[in-house]
């Protein structure tokens, strides 16, 4: 039976080094939950704490109501898919899948049925008598998945399972994993640093940075309504502008530093007149408009469906240290492509753009939650 996972104020330390200072999250029964963050932020560390391969220095991890802190890995009834697959090279595909069932002393005939079934589900039944050495990366991946799922674990844990595959296979396996997970209906914790993968595969995503969860939410919410500027720039691209809040009249407005105003009815009520803020605009949230913000094109990349322009705004309008300021021009409805050096005027879409506090830590948009259940 699948379980929920309750992570309550857990701490992870290596010697004096604190990797995870205080982390809480609740993963619902049956959901596909992804830990997403830059390399080195502690995703693997957290996953291995759930698996039982890392000690827990503080807090508790529960499977349903049971605290599992002190249960050794082999008693936790987890299924784990490793980055390196960790297929036993001395066993055939079938024997690999069989391994966990043998440990559980499943009766022979039942064991056979279960293996046959799962081999079909992950589509490797035709290779079942081969040694893993002679399988491709994608096939090994499927074996690893089958081996983890066939034991009917309480939770399925996956650490960057697709990172060793080529781009095309990655997308294929992504949907395969997703399909199998839904078919079996098992609580899954999935680790990746690839935001596109996370968006495509997850029910909910936890975005992590330096051992701290920045936001938990559905892929749509995380993308459209990031809780802070880190999330908005880490997931997809966002251009950050300096801004000020104006509260006169019925509807609050944000003012760019050149005086350009956008009225934003969806700002929280607590904003104050003259409050400094940061405006976050995604490249596709701009549109050409005579009245828009003026900027200059410094280079462009043609990408088929759209063209990406790299822009320069007048001094002092955008935050420093941004890798680039971009505008995506959808080529489906376009009059002409601009050349380098041309000046254009862009209008940010008030319904789409986000506004953050001056310290970048919090969204000023109504109803944006840090932890969305």
């Amino acid at each position, binding site marked *: 039976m699948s379980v929920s996972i309750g992570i309550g104020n857990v701490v992870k330390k290596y010697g004096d080094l604190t990797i995870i200072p205080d982390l809480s999250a609740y993963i619902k029964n049956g959901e596909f939950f992804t830990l997403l963050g830059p390399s080195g932020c502690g995703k693997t560390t957290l996953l291995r704490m759930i*698996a*039982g*391969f890392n000690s827990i220095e503080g807090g508790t991890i529960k499977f349903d109501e049971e605290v599992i802190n002190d249960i*050794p*890995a*082999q*008693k936790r*009834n*987890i*299924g*784990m898919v*490793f*980055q*390196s*697959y*960790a*297929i*036993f*090279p*001395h*066993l055939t595909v079938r024997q690999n899948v069989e*391994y*966990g069932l043998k*440990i*559980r002393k499943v009766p022979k005939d039942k064991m056979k049925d279960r293996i046959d079934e799962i081999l079909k589900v992950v589509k490797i039944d035709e290779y079942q008598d081969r*040694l*893993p*050495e002679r399988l491709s990366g994608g096939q090994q991946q499927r074996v690893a998945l089958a*081996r*983890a799922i066939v*034991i009917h674990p309480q939770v399925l*844990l996956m650490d960057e399972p697709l990172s060793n595959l080529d781009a095309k296979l990655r997308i294929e396996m992504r949907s395969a994993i997703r399909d199998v997970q839904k078919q079996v209906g098992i609580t899954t914790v999935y680790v990746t640093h690839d935001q596109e993968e996370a968006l495509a595969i997850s029910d909910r995503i936890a975005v992590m940075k330096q051992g701290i969860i920045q936001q938990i939410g559905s892929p749509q919410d995380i993308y459209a309504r990031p809780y802070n500027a880190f999330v908005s720039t880490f997931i997809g691209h966002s251009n950050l502008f300096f801004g000020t809040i104006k509260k006169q009249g019925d509807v609050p407005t944000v003012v760019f530093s050149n005086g350009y105003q956008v009225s934003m009815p969806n700002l929280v009520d607590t904003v104050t007149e003259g409050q400094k803020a940061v405006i976050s605009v995604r490249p596709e949230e701009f549109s050409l408009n005579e009245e828009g913000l003026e900027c200059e094109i410094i280079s462009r990349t043609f990408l088929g469906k759209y063209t990406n322009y790299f822009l320069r705004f007048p001094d002092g309008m955008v935050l420093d240290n941004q890798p680039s300021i971009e505008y995506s021009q959808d080529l489906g409805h376009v009059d002409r492509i601009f050349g380098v050096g041309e000046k254009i005027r862009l209008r940010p879409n008030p319904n789409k753009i986000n506004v953050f506090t001056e310290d970048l830590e919090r969204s000023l948009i109504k109803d944006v939650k840090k932890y969305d259940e």
Partner: protein
Amino acid sequence: MTNKKIRWDFWTIVTVVILALFAIFLLYPLISLFLSGFKDTETGIWTMDNYARFFSKKYYKSALLNSFKLTISVTLVAILLGVPLAYFMSFYKIKGKGILEILFIISMMSPNFIGAYSWILLLGRSGTVTQFLKGMGIHMPSIYGFGGMLLVFALKLYPFIYMYVSGALKKIDVALSEAAESLGCGGLRKVFTVIMPLVTPTLIAAALLVFMNCMADFGTPALIGEGYRVMPTLVYSEFVGETGGSANFAACMATIMVVVTATIFLIQKWYVNTKSFAMSSMRPIQPKAVHGIKGFLIHLYIYLLAATSIIPQCMVIYTSFRATKMQVFVDGFSLESYRKVFSTAVQSIKNTYLYCLAAIVIIIVLGMLIAYLAVRRKNWLTNIIDTIAMFPYIVPGSVLGITLLIAFNHPPMMLAGSAIIMIISLVIRRQAYTLRSSSAILYQISPSMEEAAISLGDSPSMSFVKVTAKMMLPGVASGAILSWITLINELSSSVMLYTAGTRTMSVAIYNEVIRASYGTAAALATILTITTVVSLLIFFKVSGNKDVTM
């Protein structure tokens, strides 16, 4: 100089020359040995009598049986000692690990017969421990015979198992162990269902090495075997013939030994080919701290094993400094034994260094050339060379001695008694090992390097020397040091081939022990041991690691 079919380029010439060398020094002697076994000593007529005699007399059959009994027991005990050792050293943090590793390697590299000799010094009839216990009224069981040989061989050979299995354990990714745990399998069950199967192919290869080494060894049974007859001693005494032996009968028995070792070798090769799998580890196993009673027992086991392996070595060194009078030890210390060595046995020391150096140079050159042919110029001719080059694996040292003597004791190739035959035997003993390591190195060097040199106008021979050979050399050199160590300690073949003028150190030690002049034997053995240890230290420095799997 172009022929219609064959282009006489550099590598064709090399191929032909090497084939000729193999034909003369490997195939011809082996065929001579084989044929010789079918000849009657007196009449020289073709006959099956030798074989009939061997298999009809219990005296001879029992030697073969004894050899099997001994070798199998030794292999099993070596596995029982070596596997747990490798496991503990890889999975747990052991105090003094660095030094322990070196001790195990030293005891592995020093020759079997010195081990036998030192155990005689300890537990033999007039051994230190025996005498001490006798003074207390306790009588030790005899060290001579099966038990003693088992002790000496097992203690000498378990480090092979340890080294190989440790190497394999290093290649296991922790994820495999964790995968087993995630599937609900921990503890001993995990060790036996995942860890052990993963190292089994390596273990089998190591066991074969132990088996061959024990089966072929002459020195140990000669010194400590006494009434327990085994094949190498039987072949030797029949051939040297102090008791009216026959060279043809010796050849027959030698052939039987070759058949046995060849069979075992082929079985092992078949097993490795069908059962082996590639392993690469992204995260190798990290040793864990181990405490409490478990930690104590593990440390106790390792330290006891290390001590038992190294004490005999120390005993030899100690003995070399004891004062002697008329070959009998008296109280006190002196350098008398060393003085005696330098007045009577300097020649053997010189010979050892000279022959082994010459052999090593030949081995390196041949090894690189043959490796190149086998890896880069694959064709049916070079395949033949590659296969023949493996023959020495299956020819036991003592058999090799006889083989060369039978082949080269008459004109036009009258080599018996010469330094050349000693060097040839040394080359043949180690060639296969160097070849194998050279090939492994060559597989990692891209052919395009050499092609670049040729494209820039170098000739094939010069581009090989200037580019490929140069890149191979560091790896080959560290392998050569290991070969050097085994060669200076070689006894089994040399003892058949030496004459007064071509004695090597190990032969001299053997002679001295047989003559019961233990002081000089110990002094010589100490010099040999020190050379071995120094060479090992150089090897560690050159290769940058302690991987001495050969």
